């Protein structure tokens, strides 16, 4: 096929499949912008008048009624009556109405962890992050714009994305070191961790963060491919690009392998691997869609991928999976009201045969949704954390037994 034919085919495909949003939505955006512009103009005019007024008062004296003293209510301890804007980070985390948004844990020490919280009072919300090295016996607290943006980067340091173009490193001692964000892309260095910064904004990018230097740089990716997720899987960078095509780098982002023969993937996610020699992606669904259980496994660092369709895993909704240090696949099928198997299943080495090893959930409310399981892999094995609302459960034996653990 000639290059021009492929170019035509590409453009025709995009033209056919792009779905324009409703035109009225754009009209509404345009109207809101006009209103914003008018309000901004009015505010600017009011500011000019206020400045003029202050100037006049300083010349002629203030004839208005005395201003009552500012409210100086207690700020210690959790409260739901104070406006969210004046709550301290600690109050946000410990407020009984706060919601857990994020849970991060160090792979080799489950006592080193960070949680992100949001509290909304009178429709105004505030967010904060708690960081600990002793399982929340003690913690430090930081206010953030977006509590989703917390990532463990090594030792007991966490990168916190402030959501306003700035990021910082925080540790359980309460130290907050601004992260210097450079713009020059480069491969991931040995002392760096992959961190997504700018979550929820249009400038979200994957960075390599060095906790020792407090410096972050964009990870070099194939030019002009939209990378939607990037994971460091035991030294191999695995990313989804251009929709859901897998691209891999075995030299930490210096070169990328773009397979041309891999079939299109749908609703796939990378599987956290406790075995450096095994990579996998599987269709994780969106926790509501029934999809056939298909797994793709690579035993050569992403060069070739083998499709594995176990008869036991067809027509199930798996909400998480992980690869054990022995190279077996763990799959969790929650109770969601569907017919078929539920529970935690472990495969043999072929990944074709599974046996059930535990109930799906350590808590009866998990089928309602809540926080997904966070599989954490390390040299010590798979630690599976199940977090539901503000309850968290941890398993250090591959999901066979669970116990409660603190989140704040």
């Amino acid at each position, binding site marked *: 096929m000639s290059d021009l034919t492929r170019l035509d085919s590409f453009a025709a495909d995009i033209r056919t499949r792009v779905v324009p*949003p409703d035109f009225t939505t754009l009209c509404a955006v345009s109207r809101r912008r006009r209103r914003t512009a008018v309000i901004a103009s009015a505010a600017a005019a009011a500011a000019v008048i206020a400045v003029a007024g202050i100037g006049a008062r300083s010349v002629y004296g203030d004839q208005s009624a005395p201003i009552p003293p500012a409210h100086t209510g207690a700020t210690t301890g959790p409260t739901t009556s104070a406006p969210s804007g004046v709550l301290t980070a600690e109050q946000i985390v410990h407020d009984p109405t706060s919601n857990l948004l994020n849970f991060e844990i160090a792979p080799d020490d489950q006592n080193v962890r960070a949680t992100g919280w949001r509290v909304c009072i009178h429709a105004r919300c505030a967010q904060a992050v708690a960081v600990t090295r002793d399982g929340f016996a003690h913690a430090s607290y930081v206010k953030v714009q977006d509590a989703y943006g917390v990532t463990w980067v090594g030792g007991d340091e966490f990168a916190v994305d402030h959501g306003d173009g700035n990021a910082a490193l925080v540790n359980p001692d309460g130290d907050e070191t601004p992260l210097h964000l450079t713009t020059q892309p480069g491969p991931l260095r040995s002392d760096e961790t992959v961190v997504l910064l700018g979550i929820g904004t249009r400038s979200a990018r994957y960075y390599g963060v060095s906790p020792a230097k407090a410096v972050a740089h964009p990870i070099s990716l194939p030019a002009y491919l939209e990378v939607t997720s990037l994971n460091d899987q035991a030294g191999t960078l695995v990313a989804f690009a251009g*929709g859901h095509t897998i691209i891999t780098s075995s030299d930490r982002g210096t070169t990328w392998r773009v397979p041309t023969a891999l079939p299109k993937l749908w609703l796939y996610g990378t599987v956290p691997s406790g075995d450096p020699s095994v990579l996998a992606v599987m269709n994780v669904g969106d926790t509501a869609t029934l999809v056939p259980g298909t797994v793709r496994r690579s035993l050569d660092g992403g060069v070739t991928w083998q499709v594995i369709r176990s008869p036991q895993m067809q027509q199930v909704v798996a909400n998480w999976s992980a690869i054990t240090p022995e190279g077996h696949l763990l799959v969790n099928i929650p109770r969601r009201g569907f017919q078929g198997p539920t529970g935690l299943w472990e495969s043999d080495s072929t990944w074709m045969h599974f046996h059930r090893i535990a109930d799906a959930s350590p808590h009866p409310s998990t089928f309602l949704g809540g926080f997904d399981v966070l599989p954490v892999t390390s040299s010590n094995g798979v630690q599976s954390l199940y977090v539901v609302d503000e309850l968290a459960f941890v398993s250090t034996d591959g999901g066979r037994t669970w116990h409660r653990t603190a989140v704040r």
Partner: protein
Amino acid sequence: VSYWWGRKPSLWTDRGDRAVSGDEFVREAYASSYRRLVAQLLALCGEQTQAEDAVQEAFVKAIGQGDRFAHLDNPEAWLRTVALNNLRNGWRHHAVFRRIMPKVPGSVATLDLSPDHVAVVTALGAIPYELRLVVVLHHIADLPTAEIAAQTGIPEGTVKTRLVKGRALLATLLSDDEEANHV
């Protein structure tokens, strides 16, 4: 197919015969040009979200123009120029703009590109921007070199030179290769 050379779509030729309001005219332009413009900008920037945002921003601006937009000689060229400027100026990175201004809806659905089309995007991304712009405008937007020169302000001779260079690069990068590409 060129919409501007040889024949124009009925949208533009009919407008002299009908009393069409500014909003209605933009709506018609939206229906006929949105997908085409997104395809062109996606080929340029390689990101669906970025391409759709830039095109939607152009349409929001067109809505704000009211009847003035309806009296443009070449509305799609105007929209493309605004969208290209959006892309080039990186308006999305302006923190104040991002915080204050209501956002456009963005992509309704993420496209799953086939591996072959991922290869096309990768190849286009490997070409320098000035060459890529000319290749996209000529081979995807179907603009003749004279019109590219007029719309971009580049001399026509330079457009032709860039077209030849860009095309040669693209042919090399998109040579049929069933093996994995390293980029």
